[in-house]
């Protein structure tokens, strides 16, 4: 019974995607955009500043130093 529901949902989506016309162009657009955002921009242009500071205590120290030094 449960399988039937899952199969019906699967077929619902499959038929939907198969019958797309304009939707295919939009999916190409979405995939290109996600590739640019997650692969190119995320990997090459977004340095993980806080990630370099280690664990949460390290991050707190990093931000505390930043905030104190910015005034001095």
């Amino acid at each position, binding site marked *: 019974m449960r399988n039937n529901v899952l199969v019906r949902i699967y077929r619902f989506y499959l038929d939907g995607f198969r019958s797309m016309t304009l939707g295919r162009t*939009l999916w190409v657009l979405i995939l290109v955009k996600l590739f640019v955002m997650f692969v190119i921009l995320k990997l090459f242009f977004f340095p993980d500043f806080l990630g370099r500071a280690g664990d949460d205590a390290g*991050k707190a120290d990093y931000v505390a130093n930043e905030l104190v030094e*910015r005034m001095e």
Partner: protein
Amino acid sequence: MVENISGSLIDWSRAQFALTAAYHWLFVPLTLGLAVVMGLMETVYYKTGDEKWKRTARFWMKLFGINFAVGVATGLILEFQFGTNWSNYSWFVGDIFGAPLAIEGIVAFFMEATFIAVMFFGWNKVSRGFHLASTWLTGLGATISAWWILVANSWMQDPVGMVFNPDTMRNEMVDFWAVATSDTAVVKFLHTVLSGWVLGAVFVVGVSCWFLWKRRDKAFAVRSIKVAASVGLVAALLLAWTGDSSAYNVAKTQPMKLAAIEGLYEGGNGIGLVGVGVLNPSKERWDDGEDAFLMKMEIPRMLSLLATRDMDGYVPGIGDIIRGGYQLPDGTTALSAQEKIERGRSAIASLADYRRLRAEGDTAAASAARAELMEDMPYFGYGYLSAPGETVPPVGINFYSFRVMVILGGYFIAFFAVVLFLAFKRDISRFRWLHVVALVTIPLGYIATQTGWIVAEVGRQPWTIQDLLPVGAAVSGLEVGSVRTTFFIFAILFTVLLIAEIGIMLREIRRGPEQAASDVSNDKKA
């Protein structure tokens, strides 16, 4: 102060965020507005079973889908930028910002993602009632999504419901409902979502008038105009009401923003509202003695009424806020900007002392330093400013943006009223001038929503978090060149996306709605 961070880095980081947000906000309001219009159209189809309403709803749904597909995930870049360009801010806000965004991501996004599939794939596969529910739930998902994003933004404008923890260096939420339902959040949500409805209505009326201009699909166009203009008129009227609430709230929580919006350098009782004015470009500082305006036309005592609900109420100007000494609504006396700067510096020094003493194991002294920090914490961000004049946001862009938004808001009310009258009482297809006006009104809808955000965001400068963290302290220590490079990458990426969207939309609009024999025959008769 913020002496070791260049102005150029702050400016480029702000420009990059502004560019991303502005592009993102081209897509979102149309999604919100079209969701309501097509939901109503499908509701009529559900009630009447009349296939022409189904075809009408499906046409606008197609344009909704294009806009949704192109716009989806542009907001993700904003979230990247919080972590990379504004890393100090990201950590400092803690779970206050994270919780609403997480709820937005989990609840709203999945709701949208689930039901949008049923909406597009489910015609003739699920019952009419379930399909209608899916259409409305898709729109509701987008609206709930907007709610949580705006809760996060409102907290930056009016930080409530949290306590700063100097051990973790994060603001920790102590009252979820204070954050989620603050006056600022409620007003901002209503005002912003309604502006999306107006834009959606303007878009549908404008595109429908193009069909009338081209003398095609008349019955479809008139049906669409009647629904959209009804939504538009109701939304535009409510927008005026929420705009008033918004101004009242800003007067309480961000008086400097209100003063900048009004170009009000010296306040007082019974202050008038500048309806139309030209700022004096020679005025460069709040205390240079130059007149603020070359000319202005005021509505007497209106600003006092809007800001305090009393025609003789006191509204502080930029100079008053900087000098302080006036009585606040809670009966206390306003501190001067210089006093706030001193207390902010004291707070930052106490923070440094606390963390050093705690590391050294001097518990008693650390506890005293912490108590001093908490006393001065409301002014923490002022410690990064070197002079009182730095608390003043750019006056010109706020003053003019606000007037453009308000004047367009008034225009939309008149526009929808005329359109509705002609659609219901006359043959709107004969009014060729109106078709041109409706097309021109589409970009005006975008200008109105963009200027609204300019007022909201530029008006709160120099703060990322009001009074607690200025942009100079919030920004990451990136290379200026890196930020500049990514700015241009984003500019190109977003522009390509926008051109793609406009191209696909125009192609689908030219194709027009699905035709039925009865529609063609009706149009020929018309």
